[in-house]
């Protein structure tokens, strides 16, 4: 398994009830709280999962970077430049990388198992 060798894995979210991978994101905003995403099965309407957002990147990456920078502190112009230059490129590359992992060797375990067994320290 990829995650045993490389410490990384990926899978597509799916509905526990009907097995569908078609999902809808219901995004909840409350001032002062982290944004929460309630994932709904697009086929049967069941609750699939809830994610708490600590960062957000859209395809308008410079705007996403600005949002991230508003709550972070850089002290070096060089490092900020690096972050600015890499930001959009990194996200796009990571997106393609995750798709490749899923295409080649999708992790079949439940999300809880992956998160709690292998990636607890990352939380």
């Amino acid at each position, binding site marked *: 398994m990829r995650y045993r060798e490389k410490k990384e894995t990926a899978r597509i979210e799916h509905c526990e009830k009907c097995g569908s991978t078609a999902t809808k994101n219901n995004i909840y905003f409350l*001032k*002062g709280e*982290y944004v929460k995403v309630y994932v709904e099965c697009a086929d049967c309407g069941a609750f699939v999962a809830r994610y708490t957002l*600590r960062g957000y990147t859209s395809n308008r990456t*410079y*705007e996403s*970077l*600005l*949002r*991230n*920078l*508003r*709550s*972070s*502190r*850089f*002290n*070096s*112009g*060089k*490092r*900020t*430049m690096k972050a*600015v*230059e890499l930001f959009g490129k990194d996200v796009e590359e990571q997106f393609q990388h995750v798709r490749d992992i899923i295409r080649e060797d999708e992790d079949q375990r439940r999300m809880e198992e992956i998160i709690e067994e292998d990636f607890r320290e990352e939380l």
Partner: protein
Amino acid sequence: MELIILTRENIKTLIILAAALAAGFVVSSLNLPGLSEAGRITLGIFTTAAILWVMEPFPLYVTSFIIVILEVVLLAREGGPLQMTGKEYTVFLSPFFDSVVVLFLGGFVMAKAVNRYGLDERISRSILARVGTRPSIFLLGMMVTTAFLSMWISNTATTALMVTVAIPIVKSFPGEEPFRKALILGIPFSANIGGIGTPIGTPPNAIAMGILNQMELEISFIDWMLRGIPVVIILTAVCWFMLCRIFPAGVDRIRMESEEQEPMDRKSKFILSVFLVVVALWLTSSYHGIPSSIVALIPFVVFFGLKLLDGDDLNALGWGILFIIGGGMSLGIAMRESGLSMWIVDLIPFAGMDILMILFIFAVAAALMTTFISNSATANLLIPIVVGVPAVAPETSAVVVALAASAAMILPISTPPNAIAYGSGLVNVRTMIRGGSIITAISIIIIVIFIYLLF
């Protein structure tokens, strides 16, 4: 087992670290007349720190702790050249929780709360909604808002906020309109300038205050503002005038969609109230006698105690910057204790030179350095030296260097705000140099003359 830490980048880091340590060793081995053994070792540590802060193989705060390790191992160990015993070495650790660092921490907490509850965006939008649509006046409103916010929250965060607000307006101009550049450049420039206004505006201010504190020369919060605010006002006005001249507006009005703001909720009102009370206490510390650093703990206790901020906010408080300030102050102690500061000052032929000329030299050196390296690193390296120059009051020298370290606006790498504006793709390097070099030169002149007259 795979050695995952030995990546190509980490190997490069280790090579630079080894080179910096080797350079420090070579320098400390030189037989320099008039410099004690402790002074030579400190010069070696200073050399290593300078190389690491310039090359940035790792974040700047890592260098702060390398400095402490070298100071304690080479200078302050039992039987070492500083003749320290027992726990006396903690003199090099104490700057990391110095009163200035605590003051900055309080500023970070307030900035975090203001950001988390959207007060920064609310303030910026409500000011901009009132400045009208004449391009030059709108630019002035934008720059004043940016400068004001960056006195209290980080220059980086302020720039990110204001660029977000400005981008739709900038994009509403035709592509060849020169005033687009004025709008985008006005934000980082005024963020850099605004940081000058308060002790918590930008790290060089704290470094200057901290090193002066160690010399028992205290500058209070209000003392700093009384000198900083006039400089901010004049520099903002000059910068605005220059940008309007260099990139004149080709349109009469700007197109701006005004959004109706929702009324402030209770939490936001409470945070704003605490913010105002803390600032009032900072400004009146000479009347009530509570030190500014202790006042700075109030927002920490209130916001975290009432769960308006949480553990994630605590982790994101910019501890790295506090460590950079601590590292600079720790290096300053070593330079003073070992006699290195005085030795360097004696080497420079300042005798008979006019005070204004000396201050110009300091300011130009700071601005040149900070064009290429971080303004905190510049302050950390220069302030411990300039405060030893006998011809000038240490307060004047330290403040000139701190302010000039915020005035370099020439390249995208000069400051994080410049890098953010450059990242928008709306200005290129040549445009930034064109606007930034003139404003940097004028800023240096104004800073030197004002601080000379005000101290």
